């Protein structure tokens, strides 16, 4: 069954939803290591595996917000460590410019995060997700995008 993510969250039961795009070679492996090492971290995160952080089109991020994500994270290999040599450098230019544009439109830039997590950094991954979940909880539900369409379809 497909979960309807456009529903307004129930304030009493609300939990933040973070969509994370992780590169196959470093960050995904880092998250995998965190799991194998039995590091606990909050279940607020939904991981989408991509071949490289350079694969992430800003439209992916926008779509996640439209469908009700409270925070979006793009994580890749550390600079210099990209499996494809330079995908993360391209991602860095492109996605930071995208964040500036969101911010220019008045969207809180803290809703869109980027990180470098290597395949050996299971511990970093677990503490990063813990911090981001805490931050997302403080920021509260991000209703700007989903609410536009609920008003439209109502």
């Amino acid at each position, binding site marked *: 069954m497909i979960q309807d993510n456009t529903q307004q969250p129930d304030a009493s039961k609300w939990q933040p939803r973070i969509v994370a795009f992780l590169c196959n070679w470093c960050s995904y492996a880092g998250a995998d290591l965190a799991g194998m090492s039995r590091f606990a971290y909050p279940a607020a995160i939904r991981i989408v595996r991509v071949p490289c952080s350079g694969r992430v089109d800003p439209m992916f991020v926008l779509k996640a917000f439209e469908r009700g994500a409270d925070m979006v994270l793009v994580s890749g290999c550390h600079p210099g460590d990209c499996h494809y040599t330079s995908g993360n450098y391209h991602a860095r230019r492109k996605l930071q410019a995208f964040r500036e544009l969101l911010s220019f439109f008045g969207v809180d830039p803290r809703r869109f*995060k980027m990180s470098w997590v290597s395949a050996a950094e299971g511990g970093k991954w677990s503490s990063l997700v813990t911090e981001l979940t805490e931050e997302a909880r403080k920021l509260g539900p991000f209703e700007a995008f989903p609410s536009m369409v609920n008003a439209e379809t109502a």
Partner: protein
Amino acid sequence: MKENASATKSLRETASRLLSEEKVAAVIGYARRNGADMAVPVFVRRPEDAEQLVFDDGCFGNLAVYLAKSEVRALGKLGIVVKGCDLRTVNVLLREHVVDRDDVYLIGVRCAGVDDSGATRCAACESHDPDGCDVVVGDPVDQPKVNAEDRYKDAAEMETRSPEERWEFWRRELDRCIRCYACRQACPLCYCKRCIVEKTAPQWVESSPHLRGNIAWHVARALHVTGRCVGCGQCERVCPVGIPLNAVNQKMAKIVDEWFGFRSGQSPDEQGPFSTFSEDDPEIEIL
């Protein structure tokens, strides 16, 4: 209307000569029609029609948009009238190999500024004298010193507002968008044969003109011209509901200038900022 008589005269002579010597198949320039308050584009195909060409302060349209259209390029070698600002557009089309330098004859016009209300491009113009054309016409124009902060004035004004004010502002502006895509059609650099808004599997931009789809469209449009847009202002000029797109384009131009020291359209040999990278690029809050 303030006509530039010397430029008009040389334009007509140049066009007539190029056409009679069969150096070009057509000259794209400006003409006056029916007392309209702006000059309209004209395609001159016969030497005797060169008399239609004019240059005055109503010539604010960017004719380079025609170079991006394959049906126009199919006419043969094209002569085109370009102001300094339009030449920057041509430089981007050249750097992106949309048009070949040998297939175009650039007729530059020295321009002191057109009567382009609402746009900052003439006030902050640094290319009154087009450089790199096949021929340049018109009387010499003084090049005033331009302050760096004037370049991105519209964007800087917007940045002084709080995020909440900006969100309210853009919500209101973008809510009016009717998704006619005039901004796309008028843009010389929006030349994709298949635009992202026409893709339906998956559909990245919702096609109905509601605010959510409108925001997705304007985000996509702004990002697709980032590092390419030269700020000609044609998108805002043609917008039927008056969305201030220049401010958005300027914001993105400001970012690539500040971060990568890149200003679009300076030379046909430049490399776009998103097709390259540097190890020393700024990192802003990358965790």
